[in-house]
């Protein structure tokens, strides 16, 4: 099993969620995060003084998924979250050695 972590633009959340529903992803955990990257922040003025906004709001999605579905999932996220503009975000994939469903105690792929 893999853990797919995607950093996306906040307003893309609905699109991505719908795309994932379509390919049958049944669980997502989302977190508000702040991203620092190539997309530079901006300098705001407040009462005439500068105000640098370095970290931009992003959403981090974490999806545990069976190995067999990873490619479809990556495709789906990449398409749905893409605006073509800088700051669209990244997807990271890592291994999961175990998954448990707390409610039932099921483990492995059936727990997803």
């Amino acid at each position, binding site marked *: 099993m893999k853990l797919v972590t995607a950093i996306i633009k906040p307003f893309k959340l609905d699109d991505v969620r719908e795309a994932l529903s379509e390919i049958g992803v049944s669980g997502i955990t989302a977190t508000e995060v702040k991203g620092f990257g190539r997309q530079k922040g901006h300098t*705001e*003025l*407040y*009462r*005439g*003084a*500068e*105000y640098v906004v370095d970290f931009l709001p992003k959403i981090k999605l974490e999806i545990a998924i069976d190995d067999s579905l990873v490619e479809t999932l990556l495709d789906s996220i990449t398409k749905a979250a893409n605006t073509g503009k800088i700051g669209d975000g990244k997807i990271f994939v890592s291994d999961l050695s175990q998954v448990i469903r707390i409610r039932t105690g099921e483990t492995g792929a059936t727990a997803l």
Partner: protein
Amino acid sequence: MENQVIELAYALDTFYFLVMGAFVMWMAAGFAMLEAGLVRSKSTVEILTKNIALYSIASVMYMLCGYNIMYSGTESTWMPLAFDMLTSADNSAADVIASGGDTYYSGLSDFFFQVVFVATAMSIVSGAVAERMKLWSFLLFAVVMCGFIYPVQGFWKWGGGFLDAAGFADFAGSGVVHLCGATAALAGVILLGARKGRYTASGKAVAMPGANMPLATLGTFILWLGWFGFNGGSELVVSNVAEANAVAMVFVNTNAAAAGGVIAALLTAKILFGKADLSMTLNGALAGLVAITAEPLAPTPGLATIIGAIGGILVVFSIITFDKLKLDDPVGAMSVHGVVGLWGLIAVVLSNTDASLSSQLFGAVVIFGWTFVTSIIAWSIIKMVIGIRVSEEDEMNGVDIAECGMEAYPEFVRK
């Protein structure tokens, strides 16, 4: 019959005084909300505590000695002597009637109206020194300010002292209240220094946005409303045609000046920064109000609007300038009440033919000089004895936790 009419007029004037005073009391809430909105959330509880405590200290100190210093009407025009307010009785009906109406309101209603003024002056200070001054040091200063510094200069003008004799004109206190408060704040800010991180090593100002703009806006509206009492009540009497007209004029002009201040500050900020800066606009409203306070009766509403508008422009430039001087004022109090208070004193000559520029400047210099010197002394003594600034760590974590052990918004996640 005639007596009844005199009594009725006395009752109306007293009631008017009390209602106007209640409006001014409401300004305490305005300052509290304005300042709570413009500081960072980690300093909010402490500024709220300061605001309600300073109002209370002002009430007590002014009762204990401030009022007597200011309105004793003694022989000396430099320093008052009597301390009798608490024991002296109010005007009897017989006295009032005997005066033929010259005694036209309750002495206690006057005390009430005055006590809320000193609280206003003190409220000005709290905003400027916010987020870094120790709570108890601040409250100690409030004792001195409300019990001594403010009343003495108040006596010089409104108690019939030498400033009044010199022809200095200050209807409701652009000088006596606002410039005085701002000057005490300036002294504090100089000794205190800027908030950590407020200016970069290279001297650039770093913005520290206020945490709650709706609160700041609410505070401004509260102050605007309260100002009808502040200026409107300063006519002191309403019970005949001429006086009723005068109070109406004061209301109209007060409103007009605030409106002028809003529009001017909004446009100025738009031109300078390219954005409609709400915090500057709010300061613009207050600047308009401060500007008209020295003379809200004589100008036409059109002129009042212009006086307020100039205040609104001034305040934006003043805030930028104080930042250049690294005098850190989280809410802009020194600009709104100090710089624009001075403008208000000068603007008197535009419509009040009894006032001269020289006497206005003389008054401003005296108020500034007295307040600055006494405040520096008071702040310095407090600084030496118990310190005036919280530790760096406390400032970083927020004075709320350090001083009040409480968060303003304990449940909300902050950036």
